[in-house]
């Protein structure tokens, strides 16, 4: 089974919640945490581990065999990304950065062998054993590449191929289709927010996404003393979700964040909040079976 940690706005503390929950839940489940914030993956830094088990993500791109190409332009016409341009006489050229690797061009090309398979590395996935009893899978988009969707798909695939009872995904900021791809298949969506007007605005978007996807959604209010938690509650209830935890702004959390050691391992009051949240998640998952 799978659960997701997301949040709409950037910097609300998604990764902090994800790694601390992972450390706690790894005591009860054989757990894999997948960092699907492929544009800015940070879970390994927060866990203080070095990424390991690197594998390139190779994306298909067409390579034209000009001796066979009949210059029919079908490849260029079918390319939704406009990654293939043609000269006046119909000779196709690829602009690699725009290519999404979908193979539509290859499918329509009428001449066998005129489009050959080439690949380029658009990023990497990693599988890292953490000292906390769970495995971390990380997707990392290569700088300069535009499309994060293929990386999210590959990293999630790599995670799913591992042996686990509970897969936890940590998503990117935002509410676009790469976030929904990451969340897809979850039994529970945990949205991390902060009680500022900006946080509330963006929480509404992630709640909307959760509702569209038909997911049970919980809200964790981070830095809960920096704003009006009641407003978060109102919006949360409007979408049939519930606020399950409040984490006040804390120097201890900042210190743990910076030092790369999860706070649930420390003997501080904040650790208790994460432990209780983990228990709630475990109860929910257990009771649901």
């Amino acid at each position, binding site marked *: 089974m799978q659960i997701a940690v997301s949040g709409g706005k950037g910097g609300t503390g998604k990764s902090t919640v994800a790694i601390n929950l992972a450390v706690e839940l790894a005591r009860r489940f054989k757990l894999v945490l997948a960092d699907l914030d492929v544009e800015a993956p940070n879970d390994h830094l927060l866990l203080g581990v070095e990424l390991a088990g690197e594998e390139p993500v190779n994306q298909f791109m067409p390579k034209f065999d000009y001796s066979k190409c009949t210059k029919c332009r079908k490849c260029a016409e079918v390319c939704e990304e406009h990654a293939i341009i043609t000269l006046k006489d119909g000779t196709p050229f690829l602009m690699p950065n725009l290519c999404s690797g*979908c193979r539509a061009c290859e*499918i329509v090309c009428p001449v066998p062998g005129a489009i050959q398979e080439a690949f380029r590395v658009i990023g990497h996935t990693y599988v890292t054993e953490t000292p906390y009893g769970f495995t971390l899978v990380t997707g990392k988009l290569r700088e300069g590449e535009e499309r994060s969707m293929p990386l999210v798909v590959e990293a999630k695939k790599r995670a799913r191929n591992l042996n686990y009872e509970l897969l936890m995904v940590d998503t990117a*900021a935002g509410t676009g289709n790469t976030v929904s791809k990451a969340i897809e298949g979850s039994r529970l969506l945990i949205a991390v927010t902060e009680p500022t007007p900006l946080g509330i605005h963006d929480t509404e978007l992630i709640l909307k996404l959760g509702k569209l996807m038909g997911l049970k959604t919980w809200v964790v209010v981070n830095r809960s003393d920096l704003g009006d938690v009641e407003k978060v509650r109102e919006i949360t209830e409007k979408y049939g979700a519930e606020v399950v935890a409040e984490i006040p702004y804390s120097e201890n959390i900042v210190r743990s*964040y910076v030092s790369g050691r999860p706070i649930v391992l420390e003997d501080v009051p904040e650790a208790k909040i994460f432990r209780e949240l983990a228990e709630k998640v475990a109860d929910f998952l257990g009771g649901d079976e």
Partner: protein
Amino acid sequence: MQVAIASGKGGVGKSTITASLLYFLKDKYRLIAVDADAEAPNLGLLLGVEEWDKEREHIGAKVARINTETCVRCGICYERCPYESIYIDEDGNYVVNELTCEGCNVCGLVCPVPGTITLEQARSGVIRKATTKYGFPIISAQLDVGRPESGKLVTEEKEWAKKLMDELNLEHMIVDSAAGIGCQVIASIGGADLTILIAEPTPASLSDVQRAYKVVQHFRQPAYLIVNKADLNPGFTALREWAEAEGIPIIGEVPYDRAIPKSMAMLKPVVEAFPDSPASKALKEIAERIAEEILG
């Protein structure tokens, strides 16, 4: 001039700092602001925008649809979808998940029954314009949830902003980009004259700003750095060392200041709400340096 503001990591203060810099720079220059975070747009909120005077729908996304009446359930579309966006529902029908579809049309091309899978235009979101109470215009966007290609919305926003710059004879476009380094950020940084990077002294922020800087280098632009929450983590020197090693000028440091979240709750730039706070004083100095050394 077109100035992009980027950070890689979300939540390090891009929009807060952008709003404050705009507040100072508006007195000296004719500006336009662009909120290029189409998935979580906040700059308009921070500048107190309550109503948008213009709004355009953007029909740019494409999604595949499967006609279950003519579908022969061969499953080829399901196998060939590069993004695993086709699923089988309880009745055994093949269905496109519109919240993850990238609109590549591979399913339509491999389907053996003509007309069964069609690629349809869909709304990707809206682009909006307002005039802020500070006198300068702002362009913002909102991607519909679950839609692809927020980068295209950002490109549209910048085109609209450029048109307004010509019409209103404006001097500078300030683009507040999204978190990350993908299409939205590439669309934000591409075409800019320079990028101001914002980072806080933490390992995560350093890692992400280094990635954003690679995108800036890709476009061969000059970069500058503002260190936010500069006193958050006194032992952490790696951010400043990295900037120095790369030759990225640090144009200022903003201390951690509780006045910032308070000002956010008031939906005002901190420099307006609490002009005497330590963060506001630092931001004023940074605005002066930007005026002197960058905008001229």
